């Protein structure tokens, strides 16, 4: 009897182990998440995958993640710079500072960028397979991307769920909002790693040391750490970048010496192109036209833009009462006399999305020197400011720069580049400027509008864990 029992035990063990192997084989003919990232070549695919996530899908499916291609809705169209042409539908909620939690575009945006966070965390989790010589660089690249995304999210939503590792589907961490200070702590630490681990050999469509320094400088300006910002900016300024002589070339001569980091797109390729260039025109994209210039921005640019005005906007050839953004004309073509006729598919445009360029660095340099003062006449600040103005043909010598002067110069230089909303909030002018703008367009503004609502679908999925922002 005893012998029989022993035999049974052995048999049971044997059966279990062979079952595990049999039921969970590692597939050899397809890619599997469990076995991928086995070597550095596969990890590099994970690195490219982060940029793919930032690009977003160029399609019209409401289920796709459109990422950067719809970023203008939640940034520029919430500022006094742009609005939808029709004033109708979900897009118009941004025009009128009346975004609702059920808005599908914010759900798309939120989902897209947390997906990029997942992609960056996946790279970081599999760093172990990288060679010693490339490890720091790959880590720097992933941390740059993660910091870039969190920096945008924390400015758009305030306290947000903060994930620094890959989580499972039932992990509450995806819904627990963490204090803004914690988010910035991770951003600063990630960017410091990126500055230390990266060099400038990656080109402009991938993370570089200069891009990390420039982005970290903007983070420090947001946090009021002016000296750190200035030191980082001066380091970038000694790094071989320069303003393009002709303002138009910044946008249509890609990878020029002014661009420090841009999200790359390729023309004609469904998987690598973008459609925002088409959406900004009249009846070229899926919409009738979005990100149109407000009357306020039009008057401002005509008065202050210098040479930049005609490169930044034009009268809509079909509807002369409307004004279009033209910094991103599809592959540089203007669409002919009606502004909508292209001999290629303008919805598959290849214009890169510029995240950071040298003019921004120069204007941030002025901001860092000004610090908590309301104006500056420091020679170094005047020199940086003058360079930007000179290129715009505004060559009158500036002898003193006020905070309002600087904010105005940023508006003229970086118009329609998704900077305006962040700028006015960072300068402490969000309530004044958007409050006055709302009165002018007959909208209702409260300080709660400075933050977006969390998408209702996320609130629902969280089963009450994710707390909505006030006022929504």
């Amino acid at each position, binding site marked *: 009897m005893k012998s029989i029992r022993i035999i049974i035990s052995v048999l049971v063990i044997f059966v279990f182990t062979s079952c595990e192997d049999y039921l969970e084989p590692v597939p050899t003919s397809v890619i599997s998440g469990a076995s991928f990232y086995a070597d550095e070549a596969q990890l590099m695919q994970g690195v490219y995958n982060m940029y793919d996530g930032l690009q977003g899908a160029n399609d019209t499916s409401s289920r796709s993640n459109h990422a950067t291609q719809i970023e203008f809705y939640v940034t520029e169209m919430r500022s006094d710079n742009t609005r939808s042409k029709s004033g109708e539908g979900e897009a118009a909620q941004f025009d009128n500072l009346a975004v609702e939690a059920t808005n599908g575009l914010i759900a798309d945006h939120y989902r897209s960028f947390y997906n990029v966070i997942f992609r960056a965390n996946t790279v970081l989790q599999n760093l172990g397979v990288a060679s010693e010589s490339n490890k720091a660089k790959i880590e720097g690249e992933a941390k740059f991307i993660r910091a870039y995304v969190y920096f945008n999210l924390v400015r758009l939503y305030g306290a947000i769920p903060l994930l620094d590792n890959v989580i499972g589907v039932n992990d509450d961490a995806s819904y627990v909002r963490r204090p803004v200070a914690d988010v910035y702590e991770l951003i600063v630490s990630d960017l410091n790693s990126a500055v230390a681990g990266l060099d400038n050999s990656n080109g402009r469509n991938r993370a570089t040391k200069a891009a990390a320094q420039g982005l970290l400088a903007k983070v420090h300006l947001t946090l009021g750490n002016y000296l750190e910002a200035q030191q980082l900016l001066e380091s970038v300024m000694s790094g071989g970048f320069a303003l393009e002589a002709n303002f138009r070339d910044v946008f249509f001569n890609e990878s020029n010496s002014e661009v420090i980091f841009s999200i790359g797109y390729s023309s004609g390729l469904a998987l690598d192109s973008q459609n925002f260039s088409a959406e900004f025109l009249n009846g070229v994209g899926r919409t009738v036209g979005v990100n149109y210039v407000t009357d306020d921005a039009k008057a401002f640019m005509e008065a202050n833009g210098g040479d930049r005005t005609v490169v930044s906007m034009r009268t809509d050839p079909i509807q002369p009462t409307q004004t279009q953004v033209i910094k991103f004309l599809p592959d540089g073509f203007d669409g002919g006399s009606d502004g909508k006729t292209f001999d290629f598919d303008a919805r598959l445009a290849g214009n890169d999305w510029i995240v950071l360029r040298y003019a921004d660095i120069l204007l941030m340099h002025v901001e860092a020197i000004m610090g908590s003062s309301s104006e500056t006449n420091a020679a170094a600040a005047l020199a940086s400011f003058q360079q930007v103005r000179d290129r715009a043909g505004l060559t009158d010598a500036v002898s003193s720069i006020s905070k309002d002067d600087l904010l105005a110069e940023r508006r003229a230089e970086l118009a329609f580049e998704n900077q305006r909303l962040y700028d006015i909030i960072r300068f402490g002018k969000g309530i004044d400027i958007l409050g006055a703008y709302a009165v002018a367009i007959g909208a209702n503004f409260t*300080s709660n509008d400075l933050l977006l609502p969390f998408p209702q679908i996320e609130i629902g999925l969280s089963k009450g864990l994710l707390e909505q922002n006030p006022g929504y």
Partner: protein
Amino acid sequence: MKNIFNISMVALLVLVSACDDFDKYELPEANSIPDATPPQALFTAIQSEEVDNDGWKDFYFSNGSISATTYAWDFGDGNTSSDYEPRNKFSEEGTYTVSLTASDNNGLSNTLTKKVLVEEPPAPPVTDPVLINTVFDKLGKSSGSDCTCAGWINRSLGTQGESSTGNGSDVMKFDNNEPDHIYQEFEVTPNANYQIEVEVSFKANAGKSNPSSLEFRVLAGTGYDTGYTPTYYTETTAFPQDGYGYSSVAQTEVEANNLMTKVLNNPDDTSYIKYILNFNSGANNSVALFVRGIGGLATGSSDNERYGYSSGDEEIRIDNLVITAL
């Protein structure tokens, strides 16, 4: 019959539970079920960034209240408002007790009271930097004998200056044909203008081939070795004499590390002459002043060879160094 009875029971049960549901969804009004979401008052006072017209007195009150429909503000200065997000201009500096009462339509309310400090933001101060032993008195060092060079030694950059007298007091002397130096780090406000005043006396020109000059460098704190954080000592005996700050002469000569480089030549007047030098602190909150005699040969002694420079043929004395913010 039995079957029918069973069916009735089921029907009865359904009715009872349906009654519960009916009660549950009754509109929440007075004398009904309790208000499960009472109002909660929340607000933040935001001072205006406007510079002109006493903008600092203007406050915007952002409203984050939950589950409320009407709002009553009391700004503590006699002003009130019922707006969702009001502005208030306070008449003078002070601490005001601001309260917000948020009410809902069930008659419930909640009040939040906060103290709001109204004060003019101080202009960022630029103060005169603090340096030690700027009149070059003969004081104690961390080791070795008392010296007018106390507080001013960095042996990685040169040999220590010498004690001497003149100008009615103790003074610092840069010996001829030696790599004598002074070096001290001090705290500054970034991007501010500073003025250095110093009294200098050159010995009469010896008429030889290597006349002495006195070189002043203001060195950027960003040029310190990575990871180094300066310490601002208050006693000359506390200063280290090596192994801190700039660690080689070559490092002090890197152009990017120099905020100011100025060379004083022999004026052929042996009296103490006051010189004024200016610098801007740039992107630094710490800088170092490095002064040395130059014009001599990098040979002739082991010290000259070690540091790669020496003063020329004349002694130079300095006194009464004053650095002020402009």
